């Protein structure tokens, strides 16, 4: 047999279990995970609605008033209440992961998780106050 006869070693394909498409409905913790990831859609919607509001602001008094009356529709208000819940879930789950993501060592000792968590929640409070101050008036 020539050395370069092209003979290759046969290896069977590794066994890979096929996951069902609704695997995440199996356990509550899986469903919680997918719900958390789906709050990203609420984030995109928030950004786009802000953009729409800015656009309406630039189009004149009439256009802006019709936008405001759309905002006042009961269905839209209910949807935005659900949006608030989604955005709160997004924020709280994100901030609660901060101690796992941010491991800070000062002088050889590790800063406790509670401090990092408190720092993030404080930042949230400050940011919310800043938004309120900007929007509502000095």
């Amino acid at each position, binding site marked *: 047999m020539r050395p370069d006869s092209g003979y290759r070693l046969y290896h069977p394909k590794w066994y890979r279990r096929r996951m069902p498409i609704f695997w995440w409905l199996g356990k509550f913790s899986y469903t919680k995970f997918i719900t958390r*990831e789906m709050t990203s859609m609420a984030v995109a919607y928030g950004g786009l609605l802000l953009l729409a509001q800015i656009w309406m602001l630039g189009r004149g008094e009439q256009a802006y008033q019709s936008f405001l009356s759309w905002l006042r529709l009961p269905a839209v208000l209910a949807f935005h209440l659900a949006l608030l819940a989604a955005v709160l879930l997004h924020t709280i789950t994100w901030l609660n992961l901060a101690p796992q993501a941010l491991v800070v060592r000062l002088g050889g000792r590790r800063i406790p998780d509670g401090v990092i968590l408190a720092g993030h929640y404080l930042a949230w409070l400050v940011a919310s106050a800043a938004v309120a101050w900007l929007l509502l008036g000095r």
Partner: protein
Amino acid sequence: MVTALVLPALVALLWIAVPLGWADAPRDRLIELLRSPLSRLALFGFVTLSLFHWAHRFRYTLYDGLQLYHLNQLIAAVTYGIATLLTLVAGAILWTFP
């Protein structure tokens, strides 16, 4: 991160409190806020970040959640493509704001 810190207050104030009459954000005040280029840039950054946050997370949710591994490239192109397109729209709107 930015969206996590800012969005709850924004949603609660601008889209729930103001329409319900609990708070007041008159049109003049909002236009005044948008006058400076710096605030427009900040808003552009905010919209861009929220869009790409969605694109990234949604891509992996479809990948893991619905087990669409074989469509990976298509999903990536579609989600990031949508985010890029809407970012350009945002830029256009904020640039041409009167």
